[in-house]
């Protein structure tokens, strides 16, 4: 027996789906069209944009700032996402798995705090931490007669990579910890009795057994890191565009230079890249199930 009539089903479903359709699905599709216009934030073009075809895309592919942003985004994802969050998270999960000391809860708590505190606050924490004159990092370096270093100016890209590693490692660490906990202890103990080194235990047993989780984590981290806007709060893309990753590039061209049509074209490219990540994810999941 159906508890709900057809009409009730549709009636209950409609409001939610309508909000999703109008405010999420429609913009994502509409952006394909917007990218073909010269829509602007202000002036006459904001009221009556005209169709410019693939002009925006042509201009993007000649824009050296676009390539700069693309390159920076790739470095940012590889360094802070893969080497930072995924690799460091995996290292911590593996090493902390058997750790019994006070270090474990402290480290876990600190990493989780870094992960859940609102982005504006963590950004300001890092501005304070990295400050040339008063920052804690330079103060500590001063104790061993190093520095001071103007981190956000002279090593801006390195700074946001370090920041984003700090910000996001908790997720990978917790995910891998959960995965490692599903490995029966006797698997590792068998290897220990054989005399397998810690490295061999990791390589021969832990790694093969958590491989699916590793893949899931890497794709999610890639997608999230690629779409993170927080570095803007630390450096505004500067100095001299040295930290202008794609999200910041979209913001600058669209809202500081008022060229929404151009921004829409970049957004289209971003959405397609995101879609690519999602496709890899779905493909991997399907293969795992098969």
């Amino acid at each position: 027996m159906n508890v709900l009539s057809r009409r009730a089903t549709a009636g209950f479903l409609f409001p939610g789906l309508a909000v999703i359709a109008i405010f999420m699905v429609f913009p994502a599709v509409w952006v394909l069209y917007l990218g073909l216009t010269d829509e602007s934030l202000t002036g006459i073009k904001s009221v009556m944009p005209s169709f410019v075809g693939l002009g925006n895309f042509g201009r993007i592919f000649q824009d050296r700032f676009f390539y700069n942003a693309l390159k920076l985004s790739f470095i940012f994802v590889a360094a802070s996402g893969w080497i930072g969050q995924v690799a460091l998270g995996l290292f911590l999960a593996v090493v902390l798995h058997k750790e019994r000391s006070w270090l474990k809860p402290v480290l876990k708590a600190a990493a989780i705090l870094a992960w859940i505190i609102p982005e504006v606050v963590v950004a300001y924490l890092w501005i304070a931490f990295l400050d040339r004159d008063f920052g804690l990092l330079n103060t500590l370096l001063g104790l061993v007669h190093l520095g001071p270093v103007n981190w956000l100016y002279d090593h801006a890209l390195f700074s946001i990579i370090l920041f984003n590693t700090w910000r996001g490692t908790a997720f990978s660490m917790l995910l891998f910890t959960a995965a490692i906990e599903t490995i029966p202890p006797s698997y590792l103990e068998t290897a220990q009795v054989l005399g397998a080194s810690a490295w061999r235990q990791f390589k021969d047993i832990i790694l093969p057994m958590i491989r699916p989780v590793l893949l899931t984590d890497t794709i999610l981290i890639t997608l999230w890191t690629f779409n993170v806007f927080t570095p803007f709060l630390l450096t505004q893309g500067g100095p001299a565009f040295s930290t202008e990753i794609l999200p910041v590039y979209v913001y600058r061209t669209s809202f500081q230079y008022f060229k929404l049509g151009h921004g829409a074209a970049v957004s289209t490219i971003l959405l397609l890249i995101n879609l690519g990540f999602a496709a890899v994810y779905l493909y991997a999941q399907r293969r795992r199930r098969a």
Partner: protein
Amino acid sequence: MAKLVFKDIHKQFGNHTALEGISVEIAEGEFFTLLGPSGCGKTTMLRLIAGLETADKGEIWIGDRDVTYLPPGQRKVAMVFQNYALYPHMTVAENISYPLVIKKTPGGRIQEKVKSVAERLSLKGLLQRMPSQLSGGQQQRVAVARAMVQDPLVYLFDEPLSNLDAKLRQEARRFLKRIQKETGITAVYVTHDQTEAMAMSDRVAVLKDGRLIQVASPETIYTEPADVFVAGFVGSLPMNLIEGKLEKEGRDLRFSAGEFSVGIDENIGLANGAKLTLGIRPEQVFFEPDSDGGRTRAVIDDVEQLGSEMTVSLSIGEVILLSRIPKSRPPKTGERVKLRFDKSGFHFFDECGNRIAGAKI
């Protein structure tokens, strides 16, 4: 092949004492079983031999080496776990050869050894399968093969049969025992199943609360249990244990507990008035129709038919006795019967539950 010695081993987990003053010597080539209920410390003993735990006090020797503080990989022992711990991402061949790969054995030699072990355990046709494609019995053999291929000084078995169903377990029992005898390698076997312990072992150590209660051959454990705990733990049915006291009655001594009463010959060396526990195995409790109004009368409570045998539960006032007898005409529930005992099977335990040596009829 080596003997294995525990010298006054203590092990504490937090404020739980897992092992307290364990000293035992396991002979070369012996099949030695650690038997006890869960939490008695038997698995801890095994893990101490493997080096997966370290003793707080005492020494462990394998052959002529003190291994107490050696890391697990250097002790030359091979362990088979309850869940077999076969690596699901490796084929059977890879699982069996893994110990040799770790020990950096040359490739040709690995192949040779895996082949010979697989032949011996009839695993040849399964070498390219994944563990998930094997039956429970096959998985168990692969785990044993992985232990054998190491040529260890000692085999360590942690309840390796408890994941098998009853029928396979019997078969696996014989198989394990045969392999152990053929290789002549000392084996330490942990189980909570007394049937397994009795069937397979050269000697059995019964543990309780981190202490060794008795170390002896299965035969001795059965016929001369060291205390009421062992008496109750060993045997397919637990021994009947009746708490009561001795009373003088004319020239004879009688043991009585409530309405239950049985005559004891005087010459067993027990004093009048002593409080003690009488133990009788169900196989030595008999009954017959109550015709002449004998002294110990019982009522049939329940009858369980078990093929060629039956288990009858009898009550004498508060005391309940089990009797295991060959199948015959089943008695009726509620029927009154007269009890008869094979008094040579009487065991006497003192107030603390310890066997009273020599108190045998």
